[in-house]
Every structure is written in C-alpha cells, then in structure tokens.
C-alpha cells in the first residue's frame, strides 16, 4: 500500500488544445510525505511538469493548489490529511487562469489586493522617531497581518469566482480590515467609502469556504463582518 495513485492536472497552452489529467504511481515507501514531496517525486518521472514553490515551509505562499478538492499549501499538507483510498488528485487553484500545469496567473487576485491600498496612510505630521501604538491597539492586528497572500481563500470563494473584478475577495478584505483596524491609519473614511458598493464587500455570502482552507488559520469572514459593522456605524 505504499504506492500512491496521483492524478495530476496538465495543461501547456503552447502544445495542448485542452487540459487533461495525467496518472502517476508514486512510491511513498510508507512515509507520510507532504504533498510537495510527492510533486518532487513526480518531477523526477516527468520533468516537463511545472509548479511553483519556494520556502517549502508555509511561509512564502507560492504553492497554493487544490488537493483532492480542497485548497491548501502543498508544502505543509501531509498526505494523511488529504489522501482518501490511496488516491490524490492535484489541480491548480480554481477560478484563476492557468498559465501551465499547476501554475496560475494571480493578476486578478493582486489587483484586488492593490485596490484596498495595503499600506499605512497617515496625514498627521511625522513624529521625530516613530508613530506609537498602545499594546492593546497592536493586539487588534493579530489574526490579520499574518496573511501570506497564498490565494487559497479567494480562489475557493464562489463569490470571487463569479465577480473577481468587482468583489475584493477574502484575502483582500482581510488586509483591508488590517488597515481599517490600525490605530495609526487615518484614511478610515476614504477606505470605507470605497467599499460600500454592492460588490466589494457585500458580495460575501458568508459560507466560510475561506476560513476552512486558510493554511494560516485566519478568519476572513470575521474580518468581513467587522468591515460591515464599521460601514453600518459610519452610515447610520
């Protein structure tokens, strides 16, 4: 039982007319490997297959993919977490254009991130040394700043699949709230004004796919709820 049956999504737009699934038999020697290790073994069998990775320890966010139907980081996902009946199906993140095999074009994802202005804005005079923040205010950023922008959440969100050009998506909204919640940021009103349309925030239907896949254990749905609360407080 140490041979794993892997079904891998293959697509090279330069040579293939359509994507197809390729089968591999991988000898795991009975070890509970990470999915990324399995990809390395596949690469030894077929060097034309392509995927992204860098840190191999859940820090860089480059190897997000769909493993047996669930998004996650291949480098920190042990086979025992995803493999059922000795079968593993690997596909690229859903909803994003495929460049080749498991590599997707993250352009639409980054454009939504850019839109929420992910940097501190403060129009008070610059202090001599640094902008201070109380420990309590600093605590409000916990569970927000840890996001590594792997896109596992946004690419598992049906609302993002439908309207990736209009709905900011869970990753972008988590970061949006990270700056809305920051006591040193003074652009709160402008930030909120950019979010009150029917798509940017309100397309979230609260089904929490984002929460269930986040490899960092973050909760975008809660952040979205907080943004909604802020919008409501601001407008009533």
């Amino acid at each position, binding site marked *: 039982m140490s041979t794993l049956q892997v079904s891998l999504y293959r697509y090279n737009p330069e040579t293939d007319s359509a994507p197809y699934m390729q089968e591999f038999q991988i000898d795991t020697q009975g070890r509970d490997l990470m999915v990324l290790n399995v990809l390395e073994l596949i690469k030894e069998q077929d060097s034309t297959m392509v995927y992204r990775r860098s840190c191999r320890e859940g820090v860089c966010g480059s190897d997000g993919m769909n493993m047996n139907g669930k998004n996650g980081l291949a480098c920190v996902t042990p086979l025992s977490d995803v493999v059922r009946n000795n079968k593993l199906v690997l596909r690229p993140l859903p909803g994003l254009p495929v460049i080749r095999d498991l590599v997707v074009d993250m352009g639409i994802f980054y454009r939504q991130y850019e839109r929420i202005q992910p940097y501190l804005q403060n129009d008070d005079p610059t202090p001599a040394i640094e902008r201070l923040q109380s420990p309590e205010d600093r605590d409000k950023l916990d569970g927000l700043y840890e996001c590594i922008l792997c896109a596992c959440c946004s690419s598992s969100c049906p*609302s993002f699949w439908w309207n990736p050009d*209009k709905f900011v998506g869970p990753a972008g909204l988590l970061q949006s709230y990270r700056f809305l919640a920051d006591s040193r940021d003074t652009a709160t009103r402008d930030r909120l*004004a*950019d979010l*009150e349309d*029917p*798509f940017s925030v*309100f397309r979230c239907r609260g089904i929490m796919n984002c929460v269930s896949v986040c490899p960092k254990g973050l909760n975008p749905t809660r952040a979205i709820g907080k943004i909604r609360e802020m919008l409501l407080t601001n407008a009533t």
Partner: protein
Amino acid sequence: MVTNITNPGRSGLADWLIQRVSAVILALYTLFIVGYLLFNPGLDYIAWSGLFSQAWMRIFSLLAFVSLAAHAWVGLWIVTTDYLNKWVGIRLAVQTFIILAVFVFLVWGIQVLWGA
C-alpha cells in the same frame, strides 16, 4: 468603488440593510398568519375578510408586501449579477422583467387589500 445602477438601494450597505429588515418583517408576518390560522380552526369568509378590513391589518399586510417586493428585488438582483455575469443584454432584460413584475405584484396586492 464599483458602480451600479440597477440595484434597489444604490449602495451595497443599503441593500444589505433592506434585506435584513425586510426578512424580519416577513418572518413576523408569517408567524402571525400561521398563528392566526392555528388559533381559528373553523375559519370562514366573514372572519377572514373581517381581519383584513381592519386598518392595522392592512398596514401590516402592506408592510409585508413592500418587504417582499424589496427582498425579492435585492435577492434576485444579486442572483442575476452572479449567474448572468457574462451576458449583459440578457441580464438587463431579466432585471427589467423582475422590477416590472415586482411592481405589478405590489400594485395588485394593494388593490386586493383595499379593493374588497
């Protein structure tokens, strides 16, 4: 900011609030009607039309109809902007049809309430 012209409340926040408030009103109305039917087993035409001839019942019913209209418009507008995402012409046609249907049903409801 993403712009829109066919959603009922102009802003996502307004739509969201309309959806929540109308849901509460519809829930109360449904509970009331179901409760009324349960507590009046041998209900006849006289009692039923008597109920709807009272001003407060007409106001309550009209409130429920308006809520239903708003709730349907917000909800179906969202459905069209998801499922008819790619086809602008069809989407606009369906949205127009929904708005007209909501309007017709609302006026018809008012006529039923005050007509009899």
